[in-house]
């Protein structure tokens, strides 16, 4: 027995030691200390603490092709070794850690013991922090990259948010926040999912293929509205977000569908301009922030509460389930067909679904309007922060706002950056512009491998075009109608391989694909002209870029199914997810902090989440409890009776 005790105790001790060790290990790996090589002296050593969401910054990942050092390391290297940096020749360090949700970030700032210099919460949480006087101003002149390269349209969303301090002072968000990533909340759906119960008129007269096509068209048509989520045709195939703000935004929009669509009609008919249109949507969209006693037309009073709750319960009866991150995988594996999704997740799911079984998913930003959200960097107030540390924090913001670094981040994370500029333009072209693929062809040749076996090798090469006497690489401008290069028609397109020139359009064994260079020339309706000048305007050098450079030609930007809505189609592919066009952006609004309504909205959500206690369950429950009580009473009374009898017998025995 004793031996056993020792064994148990010592194993507990070992476990404890091991867990303490792993705890210490995991802690160090979580809080990444980027220290300088030599131990620095106090005074010339500056360190900052940065808190971000998980997987929300470029990290070295050689397996997946991200071969550069972590962005944080690159920053330290830049700050210490670049003559432009104010910390040139000094020692700096960044301790980078992660946090899950905006709420936990808020708690970390509010109750945490360590000083946080930069933190990256979502829009409404920044507004809340600002309203509670927790933030320090960030002068954008100290973040010149953000000032110069941030997309003006996107940053105007941020600039229009205000917060009121308890003292009544109104602060503007733009003085306190440097935007990081943004996106929309829309509906991701699979148009070929076969569990929908779609009814098509005259279905018996159509062939099977026609029927399929009609169904697909119907789905795309329906999914341009939030009401599709309530539609019994899509019963049990939808998953929505298990988070208050996202789901309430959708329910609000569905409930006010009629008003929102009438605003849209006014806008399309030119009765109101885009600012008026947006502000009208905004009034409905942000009704949750208006207390019941406010004089606004749309507010969160008992009538609205009832209506919203009714819609919520109805929605709950029509869905597959609630989720926060399983949805993007479920739609790939075919558990669901429709998912309320953030644009970044939608991009991820689209590429996954295509890799999985070549399914094409679409993303819709419904015509009623949608939620545009952003995450931004703020600096919590702290008395222990030195001027140097503030400077270094601003330098960090400047570094990640550099278009070149923003490009790395976007490439790695998949969300859309606030930063525009040349590098981002190039990245989008590389990802989505159809012309990019026309600039390359494939050279095929046979080679011998290590074992002396002959293998066929394909290598991508850049197409060259004759410019005067010389050959140069094709350029995007060569494809534009107004500056059309005659050489393209002369079929004098070459490519270089092993110092030899080959003719592209010459049909022989050396290449497989042919360039189709008339793509933008004609009224080719297969390609969409996507004008992103709203995003890039003012961030590109004017001597190098014209308006036409901000136009992209993409294959699946919109899904074309509805000729009646030429302006502002609502459904598109992955390019549309990441960079919606201006028509879409106009109907998007930022959802503000609920303010004093917060606790009523929490109650509403609790009521919704606690669910129904079905009648059969209540009856069964009561029956079981009664049965248990009955058995207990039976045993207790039986025991009492037998006890009494025993006593009696004992007495009798004594007496006799």
């Amino acid at each position: 027995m004793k031996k056993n005790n020792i064994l148990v105790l010592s194993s507990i001790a070992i476990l404890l030691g091991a867990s303490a060790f792993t705890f210490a290990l995991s802690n160090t790996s979580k809080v990444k200390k980027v220290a300088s090589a030599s131990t620095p002296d106090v005074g010339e050593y500056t360190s900052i603490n940065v808190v971000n969401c998980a997987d929300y910054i470029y990290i070295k990942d050689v397996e997946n092709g991200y071969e550069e050092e972590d962005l944080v390391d690159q920053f330290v290297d830049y700050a210490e070794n670049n003559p432009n940096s104010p910390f040139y020749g000094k020692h700096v360090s960044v301790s980078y850690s992660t946090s899950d949700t905006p709420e936990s970030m808020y708690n970390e700032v509010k109750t945490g013991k360590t000083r946080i210099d930069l933190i990256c919460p979502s829009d409404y949480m920044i507004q809340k922090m600002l309203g509670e006087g927790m933030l320090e101003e960030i002068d954008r002149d100290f973040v010149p990259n953000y000032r110069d390269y941030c997309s003006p349209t996107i940053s105007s969303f941020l600039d229009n948010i205000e917060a009121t301090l308890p003292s009544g002072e109104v602060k503007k968000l733009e003085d306190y926040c440097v935007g990081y990533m943004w996106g929309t909340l829309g509906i991701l759906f699979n148009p070929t999912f076969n569990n929908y119960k779609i009814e098509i008129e005259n279905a018996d007269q159509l062939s099977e293929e026609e029927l399929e096509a009609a169904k697909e068209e119907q789905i795309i048509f329906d999914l341009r509205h939030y009401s599709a989520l309530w539609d019994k045709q899509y019963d049990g195939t939808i998953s929505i977000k298990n988070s208050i703000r996202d789901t309430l935004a959708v329910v609000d929009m569905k409930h006010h569908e009629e008003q929102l669509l009438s605003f849209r009609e006014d806008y399309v008919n030119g009765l109101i301009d885009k600012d008026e249109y947006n502000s009208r949507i905004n009034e409905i969209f942000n009704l949750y922030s208006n207390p019941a006693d406010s004089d606004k037309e749309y507010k969160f009073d008992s009538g609205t509460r009832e209506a919203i709750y009714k819609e919520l319960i109805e929605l709950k009866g029509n869905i597959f389930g609630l989720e926060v991150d399983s949805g993007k995988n479920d739609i790939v594996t075919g558990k669901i067909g429709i998912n309320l999704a953030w644009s970044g997740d939608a991009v991820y799911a689209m590429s996954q679904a295509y890799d999985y079984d070549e399914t094409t998913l679409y993303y819709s930003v419904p015509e009623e309007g949608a939620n545009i959200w952003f995450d931004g960097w703020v600096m919590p107030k702290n008395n222990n922060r030195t001027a140097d540390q503030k400077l270094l924090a601003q330098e960090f913001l400047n570094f990640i706002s550099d278009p070149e670094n923003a490009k790395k981040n976007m490439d790695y994370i998949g969300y859309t950056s606030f930063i525009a500029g040349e590098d981002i333009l190039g990245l989008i072209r590389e990802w989505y512009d159809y012309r990019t693929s026309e600039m390359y062809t494939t050279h095929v040749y046979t080679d011998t491998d290590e074992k002396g076996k002959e293998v066929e090798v394909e290598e991508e090469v850049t197409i060259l075009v004759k410019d005067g006497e010389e050959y140069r690489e094709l350029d995007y401008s060569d494809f534009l109608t107004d500056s059309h290069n005659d050489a393209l028609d002369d079929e004098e397109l070459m490519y270089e391989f092993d110092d030899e020139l080959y003719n592209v359009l010459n049909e022989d064994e050396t290449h497989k694909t042919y360039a189709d260079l008339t793509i933008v020339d004609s009224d080719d309706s297969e390609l969409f002209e996507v004008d992103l000048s709203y995003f890039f305007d003012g961030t590109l050098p004017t001597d190098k870029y014209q308006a036409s450079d901000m136009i992209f030609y993409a294959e699946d930007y919109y899904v074309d199914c509805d000729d009646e809505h030429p302006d502002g189609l609502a459904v598109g592919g992955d390019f549309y997810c990441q960079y919606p066009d201006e028509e879409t952006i106009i109907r998007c609004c930022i959802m503000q902090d609920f303010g004093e309504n917060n606790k009523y909205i929490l109650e509403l959500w609790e009521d919704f989440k606690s669910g129904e206690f079905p009648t059969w369950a209540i009856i069964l429950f009561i029956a079981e409890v009664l049965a248990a009580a009955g058995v207990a009473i039976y045993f207790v009374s039986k025991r009492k009776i037998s006890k009494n009898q025993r006593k009696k017998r004992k007495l009798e025995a004594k007496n006799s």
Partner: protein
Amino acid sequence: MKSNKKKEAKKTRRFFSVFGIPYAVFLILFIIIPILIIVYYAFTENGQFSISAAASFFTSWAKWKVLLISMFVALQTTIICLLIGYPLAYFLANKKFNKNTVLVTLFIAPMWINFVLRTGATRDLLTWIGVKGGRMPYFATLVGMVYNYLPFVILPLYSTMLKLDKSLMEAASDLGANPFQVFIKALAPQTIPGIVSATLMTFMPTMSSYVISDVLSENMITLFGNYINTEFGLGSWNTASFMAMIMLLIVGISLFINLKFNKDKEGGRTQLW
């Protein structure tokens, strides 16, 4: 001589008590201090004494509903587990039916795989055979719960059944009791400690579990554990702490009941805990 022996024993005991220190540290660090923190948050708001968390719990029908639903799910899980586990444990413990212990190992084996992984697989399996968790949230949750907690029912019952006094049952049937009477009068009373500890091992964890109901009911059922988690996520630490305290209270009550049964039965050390 005798006193010398006593001294020796005392010395040994003192020596061995050193090994208790790690556990004492563990106890204080991970059990006592967290409980104190919970109690602190349950009765304060922004650092001031307040009963607003208690008030918000007792006045909210939603929270009571969640508590009742959790109790309902926990009770069903326990009953189903016992219905399946009791005869199973009997057969497993009976040498006539179970020649070696391989079968026992098979039934206990799922315990060795992390339940989050198993729950994910269960979800895939259920959707594959056409059970949509969001549509039949109670059914899906109960399937997951029973699957997960069945080993915890079998194990204590199995260990009590191993020690069954079979002569009692033989005597009962020899004296003319029918099989049902044998079960009620001779078998069941002997296994009560096993039943009680199996019940406790299932009922309490089911109430506070949240991964299983989250995953299998597609977040359509909220159990008490889910609710505490949600409240923490939303930043209302005080309410969440108060609810955690209610949970602790229920654990306390059930431990008390367990103790009572322990006292009734002499040598009731056959239980797992």
